[in-house]
């Protein structure tokens, strides 16, 4: 379970997130929607501390995962990121073989011996619905795969280190409709085992895949509720205007 308590985030002097408080249940898909620059991606990156990589930023408030504040001094960032995997907007496989891409996380975290890694690679590729397509060319470069396959490879790569949470930052925005639909189907299947948080510009996608949806605007969480409610009868006029496209 993920819980944010009064999270405020600043890029230098820019107040990017204002008093965000929300809870995300285990084994659900939560989608964040909102116009560009509304802070949804920033909030996503707070959950695995990817914002630490950006200079001159700071955070106030608490962000708890399974009850522990991930911004606590005692938390090791690389351990946190093992638990909270991430898939990015543009597929970013490493210039290595398909097998090595998936094994990468296991190797850098020294998890298991050779046979364990081989087993886990297969398991992860199956989990990402890619195994059947690549099982005969595991030694081939990951760049030989199509964009959609590369993105599923990145998902497999994230699954390999068995995280409990999977963050997805517009995972299908660079893909064609068929690959997109495969990724969405995958998300639907993955929520049995993982808690998924996805940022998307595509409202229909949020509607299709998520259980709960949060609408961000100008750094504020305007509305956060069941996806069904959000797309049928949102409470706030702002939300309504945005999802109906009347947003001025």
């Amino acid at each position: 379970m993920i819980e944010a308590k009064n999270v405020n985030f600043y890029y230098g002097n820019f107040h990017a997130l204002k008093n965000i408080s929300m809870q995300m249940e285990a084994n659900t898909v939560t989608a964040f929607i909102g116009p560009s620059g509304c802070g949804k991606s920033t909030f996503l990156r707070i959950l695995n501390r990817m914002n630490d990589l950006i200079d001159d930023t700071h955070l106030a408030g608490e962000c708890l995962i399974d009850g522990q504040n991930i911004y606590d001094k005692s938390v090791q960032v690389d351990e946190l990121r093992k638990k909270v995997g991430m898939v990015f907007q543009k597929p970013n496989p490493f210039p290595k073989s398909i097998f090595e891409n998936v094994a990468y996380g296991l190797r850098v975290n020294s998890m298991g011996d050779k046979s364990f890694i081989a087993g886990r690679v297969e398991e992860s590729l199956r989990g990402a619905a890619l195994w059947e397509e690549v099982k005969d060319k595991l030694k081939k470069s990951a760049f030989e795969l199509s964009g959609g396959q590369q993105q599923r490879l990145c998902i497999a790569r994230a699954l390999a280190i068995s995280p409990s949470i999977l963050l997805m930052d517009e995972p299908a925005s660079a893909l064609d409709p068929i690959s997109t639909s495969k990724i969405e189907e995958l998300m639907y299947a993955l929520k049995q085992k993982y808690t998924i948080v996805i940022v998307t510009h595509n409202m229909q996608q949020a509607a299709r895949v998520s259980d709960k949806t949060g609408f961000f605007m100008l750094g504020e969480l305007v509305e956060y509720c069941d996806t069904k409610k959000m797309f049928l009868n949102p409470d706030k006029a702002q939300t309504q205007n945005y999802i109906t496209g009347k947003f001025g």
Partner: protein
Amino acid sequence: MNKKTSQKVAFLTFRLLGLLVVGILFWILGFIVYNGIGIISWEFLTTAPKEGMTAGGILPAIVGTLCLVVGSVIFAFPLGVMSGIYMVEYAKNGWVVKLIRVMTNNLGSIPSVVFGLFGMALFVNTLGFGDSIIAGSLTLGLLVLPLIIRTTEEALKAIPSSFRTGSLALGATKLQTIRRVVLPMAFPNIITGLILSVGRISGETAPILFTVAAYFLPKLPHSIFDQVMALPYHLYVIATSGTDIEASRPIAYGTALVLIAIVLFMNTLAGMLRRYFGKKVKTN
């Protein structure tokens, strides 16, 4: 003049100028090859100069140049690559990095003779290495350090940050990310920088003048504290201040040819390595 003709005239001008440059290059090369090829023989490459450098070969100079290349690369390559990594991957983009960058750029534009003088003051005299391979190598190393830092920096910057974030998001540390993802990808370009600096090292005359080069030393070095001959300096000597300049003219052309061949060989090698490693880490 209408648009079409002006277009044609411009195109023709650019083309002629381009051909001119190539032409000059080939002219120089042709001149050297034409004059130097006659003297090249197995003996020329494997024996020491004789009879006041009007006969015999240039082996000590070849060996000397190779020693200097190897020595300066051993010194400058790790240092340069590590500084480059520090500047791109670790240092925050503050005034320190800016300062280092300005300094390396300035270092790169200092005339090489000044490096020679500095090398003599520091390595030869202060540190007491005397005129030796080590003093020369360190001086040459300093000379190409900015080039190596620069190319390393450029090579690292060319790697999209998405690969770094991708690795970090999998729980890898910064060091693991650099070692396993960033460096392998940047390697072809770093290697190119290295080989270019090797070309530069083998051709420089001024820095070795004060620090290592021997006027005439027909024996091979035994330790890094020995003096050696070097191709560029040897060329200078036999072309300007030899015992019998006219008699040693063919040897001068031969030496020039060998020097050019070594530099060209290095550049070709750079291209091949680049292509080889580039294939291994092809990015999309």
